[in-house]
C-alpha cells in the first residue's frame, strides 16, 4: 500500500465527478434529442481513467476508444468546446466534424476512434515518437476486453514489446461487447496472452480508484526510464447504461412490456416454423438468448459504481466531496445554459 495524500484523493474525486456529471448532462441532452446517433458513455469507467490520468505529465499521449469523453474531460480539454463538439456544433472542439466517437486534441495529444482495437496501434505510434525524440513521455491505450480479440491490438502488444516502447495498455473489462459476453468468444486468459508477449501484466479492481492509482504509480516510473517497456492493466468495470444509450438488452428491463411485445411474436413464429433446425436445438437457442437478456440486468446494478465506492471508502471526506460536487454541478449547469442559449439563438445546430 502506497500512502495517498488527502489532496490526491480529493483530486481523484474531482476528476471522476467532473466526468460523471458531464456524462449525466450528455445523457439528458441525448434523451432530449439534441444529440443524434449513438452515445457511448464512460460512466462506470471513471476510476480507471482518473487513476491512470492523474499520473500523466505534459507530452504523454492518450489513445481512447469509443468511450472518449471521460479521458477528454479529465485531461483538461476546454469543456465548452468539448460539449459543443458532442452536440455537433460548428464551434466545437473539432468544428462539429467528429462527435463523441471521433474527438481529437492535437495540443493534448488525445485521440479517439470508433474502430475497435485501433487505440493499440495509435498508442504504439505515439510511444515510438516519444522514444525517437528521447523524451521521457509515454502513451496510453484505452480499450475494452472485447477489443482484445482484434488482430491489430494483439499485433500492437507484440510491437510494443519487441520494440521496447513505453505504452501503458489499459483494458477496461466489463465482459460485454455490445450484446456479447466476451468470455463466450474468447480463448484462454487475457493476462496469460499478454504475458506471452513478454509484457508485464496485472488485473485490478477498476471500480476502486485507489487501486488503479497505486497500480499505475508503480508501473509508470519504470516505463519512463531509459529502458522503455510496455505495461498492461486489466481493470474490471460496469457500464450501467449498457453498451450505449438506448441499449437494446437493457430496454427489456426498463420497458419490458414494449420490448417483449415487439420481440416475442417474430421469435415464437420462428421457433415454430415448419422448416428449420431440430426442435431441441431451437429451444436451446431461444433459452440462451433469454438468459442473456436476464444476465444483462447485472449491468444496471451500482454495486461497482466507482464514485459510490469511493464515497463509501472515504466517509471522512464527505464534506469536501459535497463541496466539490456542488461547484462542479453549478459550473457545468452554467456551461450548458450558455451553450443551449447559443444553440437556441442560432435556431439550428
Amino acid at each position, binding site marked *: 500500500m502506497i500512502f495517498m495524500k488527502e489532496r490526491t484523493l480529493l483530486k481523484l474525486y474531482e476528476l471522476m465527478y467532473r466526468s460523471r456529471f458531464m456524462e449525466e448532462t450528455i445523457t439528458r441532452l*441525448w*434523451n*432530449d*434529442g439534441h*444529440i*443524434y*446517433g*449513438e*452515445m457511448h458513455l464512460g460512466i462506470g469507467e471513471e476510476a480507471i481513467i482518473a487513476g491512470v490520468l492523474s499520473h500523466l505529465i505534459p507530452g504523454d499521449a492518450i489513445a481512447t476508444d469509443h468511450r472518449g469523453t471521460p479521458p477528454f474531460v479529465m485531461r483538461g480539454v476546454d469543456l465548452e468546446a468539448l460539449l459543443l463538439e458532442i452536440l*455537433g*456544433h*460548428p464551434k466545437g472542439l473539432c468544428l*462539429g*466534424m*467528429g*462527435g463523441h*466517437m*471521433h474527438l481529437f486534441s492535437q495540443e493534448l495529444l488525445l485521440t479517439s*476512434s*470508433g*474502430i*475497435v*482495437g485501433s487505440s493499440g496501434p495509435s498508442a504504439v505510434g505515439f510511444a515510438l515518437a516519444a522514444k525517437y525524440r528521447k523524451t521521457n513521455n509515454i502513451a496510453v491505450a484505452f480499450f475494452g476486453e*472485447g*477489443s482484445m*480479440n*482484434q*488482430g*491489430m491490438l494483439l499485433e500492437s502488444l507484440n510491437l510494443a514489446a519487441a520494440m521496447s516502447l513505453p505504452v501503458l495498455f489499459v483494458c477496461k473489462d466489463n465482459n460485454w*461487447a*455490445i*450484446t*456479447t459476453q466476451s468470455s*463466450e*468468444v*474468447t480463448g484462454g486468459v487475457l493476462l496469460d496472452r499478454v504475458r506471452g508477449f513478454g509484457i508485464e501484466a496485472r488485473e485490478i479492481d477498476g471500480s476502486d480508484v485507489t487501486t488503479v492509482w497505486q497500480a499505475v504509480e508503480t508501473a509508470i516510473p519504470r516505463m519512463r526510464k531509459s529502458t522503455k517497456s510496455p505495461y498492461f492493466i486489466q481493470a474490471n468495470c460496469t457500464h450501467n447504461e449498457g453498451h*450505449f444509450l*438506448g441499449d*437494446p*438488452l437493457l*430496454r427489456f428491463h426498463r420497458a419490458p412490456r414494449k420490448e417483449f411485445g415487439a*420481440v416475442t411474436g*417474430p*421469435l415464437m*413464429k*420462428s*421457433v415454430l*416454423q415448419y422448416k*428449420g*433446425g431440430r426442435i431441441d*436445438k*431451437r429451444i*436451446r*437457442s*431461444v433459452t*440462451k*438468448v433469454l438468459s*442473456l437478456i436476464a444476465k444483462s440486468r447485472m449491468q444496471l446494478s451500482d454495486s461497482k459504481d466507482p464514485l459510490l465506492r469511493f464515497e463509501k471508502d472515504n466517509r471522512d471526506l464527505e464534506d469536501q466531496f459535497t463541496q466539490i460536487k456542488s461547484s462542479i454541478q453549478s459550473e457545468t449547469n452554467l456551461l450548458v445554459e450558455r451553450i443551449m442559449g447559443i444553440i437556441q439563438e442560432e435556431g*439550428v*445546430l
Partner: protein
Amino acid sequence: MRTMEFAEAIESALKQAMSENPDIFLLGEDLHTLRVNLLAQFGKERVQSTPISESAFLGAGVSAAMAGLRPIVEIMLVDFIGVAADALLNHAAKVHAFSGGKWSVPLVVRASCGGGYGDGGQHEQSLWGWLAHIPGINVVVPSNPADAGNLLLSAIEADHPVIYLEHKLLADYWLDYMGTGGRENVTFDIPEAGAKGEVPNKWQPLPIGEAKILREGSDLTMISLGVSVHRCIEAAAILTNEDISTEIIDLRWVSPLDTSCIINSVSKTHRVIVVDEDYLRFGLSGEIAAIVAEEINSKFQFGRVCTDFTIPFNRNLEDNILPNVNRILDVARAFTYE
C-alpha cells in the same frame, strides 16, 4: 403479393434460402441478437456469433466457402471492413483467377452502409466503389424491400464472392440501434418507398448485374442506387414541373455494372447525372462517365452528385455532404436543354 419492411424482407429471404440449403450459415458479431429469429429457427450451428476478429472470421469465411459451404459473413458496418480488407482483396477476389477458374468462392459478405443519421465519418460510409474496384468481387445495393429479398438470393446463389450492402436508413433495426436508440424525438429523412413495400410471395433471384429503369424519360438520365435512388425520384418529380423529363436507373449492382442499360438510356437523353452516396473521386461516378465517353459517339452532358468529404457528425453539414434533392436539382438545372 404481400407488404414488408426492408429488413423483414431480408430476413424472410434468408429464411427461405436457409430452409432450402443446409450449407448456408451465418457468421458475425452479435448475431444471437441481430439475427435472433434465424437463430430461433435454425439453431446455433447456422447462426454463429464471433469475437471482434473481422480479419480472422472474414478470412475463414473465404475458405469455408472454398470447402463447399455457403457462408454469409456479416461485417456490422461496411466501414469496419477496413480491418479485414485482405480477406477480400487478396483472397476472396483472387482464388478463382489463381486456380485457373477451377476453384470458386461462393461467399456473401453482408454489411450495413450509408449515412444520414448522425453517426460520423467512421460509421456512415458507403465504400461500394472502393470494393467494386477489385476484380473478382460483385457488389449489390438494394433500394427497396422487394429487391432486398430477391437480390439477396442472387448473392447467395452466385458462385463467386458478393458483397451485399443494406442501407441503414432503410433497415429499421439499424436505425433504431444507431440513430434513434429508442427515442421518438429524433427524425431522419427515410424514403418511404425504400423502407416498406410490396414483395413477392416467394423470393426469386434476379439476374446478376441487371439494373432497373424506375421511371422513363427523354431529357435526362439519373443513375443511382440505394437511398439516393429515392432522392432522384423526388428530384425528378420537381423537374417534371419544369418540363424536364427524367429517366431514372436504379443500378442495383455496382459490379457488374449494367453498362448496356446506361448506354441505351444516355444515347436517348444525352444528359446524365450520377447520384452516388459513395465518394466522388475514383469511383462509380467516374466509371460511368468513362463508360459513356467510350461508348457514346454523340455529345452528352455529364454531372454528378456524390460525397466529396469525410462525412461530418453535424447533421446539417452531413445532409449537405451527402447527395440530396437540392444538389441534384442544381446539377439538372445547370444543363442546357433545347
